[in-house]
């Protein structure tokens, strides 16, 4: 008999704001965080985090002994502190011995590496900051979370590009089911709006010059975002025993690899991950659901994802509701899957679908029952899709707590 895994805390940082409450309010108000960024030499539309608000939130945490913190770590620390507070776990003995940390990141601390390489190549200086490696390594934020929370259990970063944090949540689910830990602080973080990373994304030809328009005609690509989302997962038994607030259930996880192409999505691989998630949750794929798409707003992703969704959900699709929240918070790369799952679980609990923004009209190749206005929903099931470059796919299924 496998153990049920419930969600007892959530925290997030993104262009929409710091914290779950403002993120949710702005999501259902139809506000987008994608706005002009003027941070020379970076200029263009992006969903960036307000640095003053971030500094204010970070100032409330005890960050002593952590050294120099890249935004990658700051985002994760602020989001994790909110999640653990919400779960009522701060200072709980389970954190020390029976908790895992799994953090998904698509790239390391870009700002730290940029600053180091600028010294070498632009200024011809031979010395780098002695903390360049410990501040920028991809596992640094996982270590920082362990220090903040006093976690001595398994702690690691997990990387699968745009699916990283969905994989982190899914693997954490299975760690708890297997009894390896009772609690997991899992999710993801990304700080990709640094000059080098920014220019590299532009070079790939997938960034929209205007904004992110998922499943819309005339969509021109993705908008970069940044931030983090962390959830506290817990065995139901453990959560009930300590009287924790139960916000929902993480009921299923499916993962697959296309093994086909480094940038183009593959419909069979995408379908495989969705079907595996339904199997894991012991649900039929025709079950009507709130479907939180990967929905990047690129020509190829949206068409492939729409075809996969139509094929898997079949007759259940007309009774489902499809959302695409990257139109509001941009693409957080490694942080996207967790933020979208978090917003999706909030939508199930509140019974409101946040609207797909910036939609100019239907595109026959990506026709889906989109929520174009915020509206009431009565779904019990969330399907949250993440499909990464390199053909790595992860799908999470959440269940409303009734």
């Amino acid at each position, binding site marked *: 008999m496998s153990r049920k895994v419930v969600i007892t805390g959530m925290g997030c940082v993104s262009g929409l704001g710091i914290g779950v409450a403002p993120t949710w309010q702005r999501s259902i108000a139809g506000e987008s965080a994608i706005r002009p960024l003027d941070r020379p030499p970076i200029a263009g539309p992006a969903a960036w985090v307000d640095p003053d608000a971030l500094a204010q939130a970070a100032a409330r945490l005890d960050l002593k*002994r952590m050294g*120099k913190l890249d935004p990658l770590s700051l985002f994760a620390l602020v989001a994790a502190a909110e999640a653990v507070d919400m779960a009522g776990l701060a200072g709980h003995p389970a954190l020390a011995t029976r908790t895992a940390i799994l953090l998904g990141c698509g790239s390391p601390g870009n700002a730290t590496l940029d600053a180091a390489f600028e010294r070498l190549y632009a200024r011809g200086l031979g010395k780098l900051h002695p903390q360049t490696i410990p501040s920028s390594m991809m596992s640094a934020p996982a270590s920082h979370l362990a220090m903040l929370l006093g976690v001595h259990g398994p702690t690691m970063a997990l990387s699968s590009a745009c699916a990283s944090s969905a994989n982190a949540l899914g693997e954490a689910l299975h760690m708890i089911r297997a009894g390896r830990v009772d609690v997991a602080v899992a999710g993801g973080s990304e700080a990709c709006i640094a000059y080098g990373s920014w220019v590299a994304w532009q070079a790939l030809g997938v960034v929209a010059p205007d904004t992110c328009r998922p499943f819309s005609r005339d969509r021109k690509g993705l908008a970069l975002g940044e931030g983090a989302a962390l959830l506290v997962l817990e065995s139901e038994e453990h959560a009930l025993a300590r009287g924790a607030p139960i916000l929902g259930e993480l009921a299923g996880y499916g993962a697959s690899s296309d093994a086909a192409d480094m940038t183009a999505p593959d419909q069979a691989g995408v379908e495989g991950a969705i079907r595996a998630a339904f199997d894991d949750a012991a649900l039929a794929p025709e079950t009507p659901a709130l479907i939180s798409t990967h929905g990047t707003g690129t020509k190829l992703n949206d068409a492939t994802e729409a075809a996969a969704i139509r094929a898997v959900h079949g007759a259940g699709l007309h009774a489902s509701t499809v959302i695409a929240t990257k139109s509001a918070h941009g693409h957080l790369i490694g942080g996207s899957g967790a933020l979208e799952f978090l917003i999706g679980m909030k939508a199930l609990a509140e019974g409101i679908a946040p609207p797909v923004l910036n939609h100019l009209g239907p595109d026959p190749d990506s026709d889906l029952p989109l929520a174009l206005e915020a509206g009431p929903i009565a779904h019990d099931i969330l399907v949250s899709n993440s499909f990464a470059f390199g053909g790595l796919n992860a799908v999470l299924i959440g269940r409303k707590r009734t």
Partner: protein
Amino acid sequence: MAVTADDVLEIIAAEAKLDRAALKPDATLTDLAISSLDVVSVVFELEDRFGLDIEPETIEPTFTIAEFVDHVVSLSNT
């Protein structure tokens, strides 16, 4: 550029994430939980801003704040 005691204290406080007020002259680095990583970061900032050349190994954990400051200021005056 000559470095002042004030400059050194400001950099120690920033790199070790301590209040300036906590940097009592007779407190040792160990007392203040200033780690070796904090020390190499302080040294890096001093070298970067003031063009000094400091061997981090010359700064012992048993140094007091006053000794640390004097050590750096004397290097800057040579």
